[in-house]
């Protein structure tokens, strides 16, 4: 089809229409394109004929049809369209985002429209959103608290984690509270000094504070911050990370308690030894061979007690470092029970207790010294907590694939709320336990030894009902070595 001969100005307009990089179209009020420029084919792949053959709505993304119809209806009333966006289907089935500017000529029933492919902008925008969401996720849901403080110490922002720790809503904090408003009164001074220095220096490391939650409870934290300055070198805000320090504080407390307990446990035997030996050295008892013997016996006993304490602590050290080595060999449950009972019999007798043994055989592959150590530890505990005249029962039996050992006493029992915690490090059952001595390492060591053998350990007890500690070891199958 030869192009109709047009006047020069019309020819130029026509050329402009055909060369435009924008998608230009003339549409009627019935929903059809009347004319489209070649840019359409470049953008969507459809030929002008294909685009003109169907209502343009056919090409619009189903989700955008409603808004497109509304926009078209608006145009028929004479209103112009500015930057309306919808998606058009390309010939390859993908969709392109188009941004429309359109002007209707109502008296002629046509719309002059130009559209621009903004798909790349949309994609960039989407990516930006995704990125922002990712950053916000990293900020808000990080496993530590984040916040920023302005020069007055007022919160500029705070993340969800820290808000959750504190029990506040963001709007209660940001722009409203100064960081020191959340502090324990006695750390206010520390904060003001640290904050002034921080603004000058630009960093602060491992500052410990105690925050007060909305419900009034306390939260120990560690803060690290760096400062943001503007071009003039003035402090703008902080970037602060906040870590929950509860566990570390608890550990510190436990360590302190442990050290004082070790102190206590070492000091009493040392005092006895010092006094006994001092008395011997002074010659004040040399006229009584009996007294001399007694003092020597006590000094010896206390030496053994200190040795046991030290080896418990070394065991603990090895357990912590994973250097606790087992020397497994074939042995029998009943034999181990008898060994432990023989060792403890004199102690039980001295404490006025009856030791009742019921030893059933079960073939084991275990480190016999370590298992006897566990049994001895449990027996020492039972003896320590039993009133005179009561019975301590020690037994072993085979139950299926397991050997079960039991040490039961008729002592005061263990409060149920203590439960499994008595097997933790540096735990003692009751305040009375402290008075009775013991460092709270025994059960922890027992659990570690039994665990390394592939067994389980537990306790059945109620206050006033005595306690029964038990542990299991896997039975050695016949013929296996």
């Amino acid at each position: 089809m030869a192009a109709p001969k047009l006047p020069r100005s019309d020819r130029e307009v026509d050329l402009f229409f055909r060369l435009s990089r924008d998608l230009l179209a003339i549409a009627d009020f019935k929903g059809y394109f009347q004319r489209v420029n070649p840019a359409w084919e470049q953008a969507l792949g459809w030929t002008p004929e294909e685009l003109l053959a169907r209502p343009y709505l056919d090409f619009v993304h189903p989700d955008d049809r409603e808004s497109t119809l509304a926009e078209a209806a608006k145009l028929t009333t004479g209103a112009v369209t500015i930057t309306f966006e919808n998606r058009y289907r390309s010939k390859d089935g993908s969709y392109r985002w188009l941004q429309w500017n359109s002007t209707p000529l109502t008296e002629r029933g046509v719309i002059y429209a130009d559209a621009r492919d903004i798909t790349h902008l949309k994609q960039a925008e989407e990516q930006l959103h995704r990125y922002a969401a990712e950053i916000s996720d990293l900020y808000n849901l990080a496993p530590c608290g984040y916040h920023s403080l302005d020069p007055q110490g007022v919160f500029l922002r705070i993340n969800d984690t820290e808000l959750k720790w504190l029990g506040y809503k963001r709007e209660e904090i940001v722009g409203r509270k100064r960081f020191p408003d959340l502090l324990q009164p006695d750390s206010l001074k520390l904060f003001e000094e640290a904050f002034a220095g921080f603004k000058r220096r630009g960093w602060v490391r491992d500052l410990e504070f105690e925050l007060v939650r909305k419900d009034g409870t306390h939260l120990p934290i560690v803060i690290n911050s760096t400062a943001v300055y503007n071009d003039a070198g003035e402090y703008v805000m902080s970037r602060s990370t906040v870590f929950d320090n509860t566990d570390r504080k608890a550990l510190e407390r436990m360590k302190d308690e442990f050290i004082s307990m070790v102190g206590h446990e070492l000091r009493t035997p040392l005092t006895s030894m010092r006094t006994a030996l001092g008395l011997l050295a002074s010659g004040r008892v040399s006229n009584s061979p009996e007294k001399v013997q007694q003092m020597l016996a006590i000094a010896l006993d206390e030496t053994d007690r200190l040795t046991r304490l030290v080896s418990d602590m070394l065991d603990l050290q090895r357990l912590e470092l994973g250097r606790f080595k087992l020397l497994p060999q074939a042995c029998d449950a009943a034999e181990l029970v008898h060994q432990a009972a023989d060792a403890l019999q004199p102690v039980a007798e001295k404490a006025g207790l009856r030791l009742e043994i019921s030893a059933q055989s079960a073939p084991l592959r275990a480190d016999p010294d370590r298992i006897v150590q566990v049994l001895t530890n449990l027996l020492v505990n039972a003896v320590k907590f039993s009133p005179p005249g009561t019975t301590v029962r020690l037994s072993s039996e085979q139950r299926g694939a397991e050997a079960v050992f039991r040490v039961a006493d008729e002592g005061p029992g263990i409060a149920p709320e203590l439960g499994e915690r008595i097997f933790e490090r540096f735990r003692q059952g009751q305040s009375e336990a402290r008075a009775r001595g013991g460092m709270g390492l025994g059960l922890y060591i027992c659990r570690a030894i039994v665990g390394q053998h592939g067994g389980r350990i537990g306790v059945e007890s109620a206050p006033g009902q005595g306690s029964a500690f038990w542990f299991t070891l896997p039975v050695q199958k016949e013929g296996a070595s």
Partner: protein
Amino acid sequence: MSRLLVVDDDEHLRTVLAALLEAAGHSVATADDGAAALERLGREKFDLMVLDVWMPRMTGLEVLARIKALPAPPKVIMLTADDTPDTLLGALREQAYTYLSKPFDPDTLLGRVDEALGARPEALPIEVLSARPSWVELLVPCQLEVADRIQGFLKRLEADLPEDVRESVGLAFRELLLNAIEWGGKLDPNRKVRIAYLRTPRLLLYRIADPGAGFRFEGLDHSALSNPAEKPLQHIETRQQKGLRAGGFGILMSKAMVDELLYNEAQNEVVFVKYLDTKKPAT
């Protein structure tokens, strides 16, 4: 022969302490816990009790609190393996004579026992006005031996401080307390000196208020403080003339030992401060 009761749940310690005290010529009975001790004390009279703090069923501090109801309670020497301020202040509050932490030199125990047995009965008890580790406040009778006891207790509260700090503070406190008891209280056991010990992370503050009318530095010719520069030991002669105990370096020495030393206008109250943070405040 004095009657002594040794109370400790540790059988060995009980045995060796009894042997030690018997060898020193005392008559000794033992009890293995607080309840047994109280029962024994209800039946017999003892001059002195050596009492462990941590025992099952009833702690030594509880025993101490209960014996005050006895018609003639024994003097008490507390033994403990922990030096926590709570235990220490508890012992002080309940009028323990003194406090030994394990392990101790047996001779030290014997010395303290003799000291306690020989001590005059106090005209007035030591009153504990505050027993917080950060604020201890006491009213003590104006007796010289009380100064040593109080210093013994307070020294333990400073166990975590560097030795040089403890030593200088201890010397200053002792001198100033002796001044208060001797000059302010005229060694009158019916009058009292008020002592406050305040402890913060950054400073240690002592305040000693005596019941006297105060003094003037001008009249202090028995003190090294008033010596003319060319005769730095003139006060010693003065003291000999006046029949005073050797010493008199108190205020001068104390000034050198602490960071701040202040007297009130009447000069019957003294406050001194030792800074605990290494950097001294800008002056």
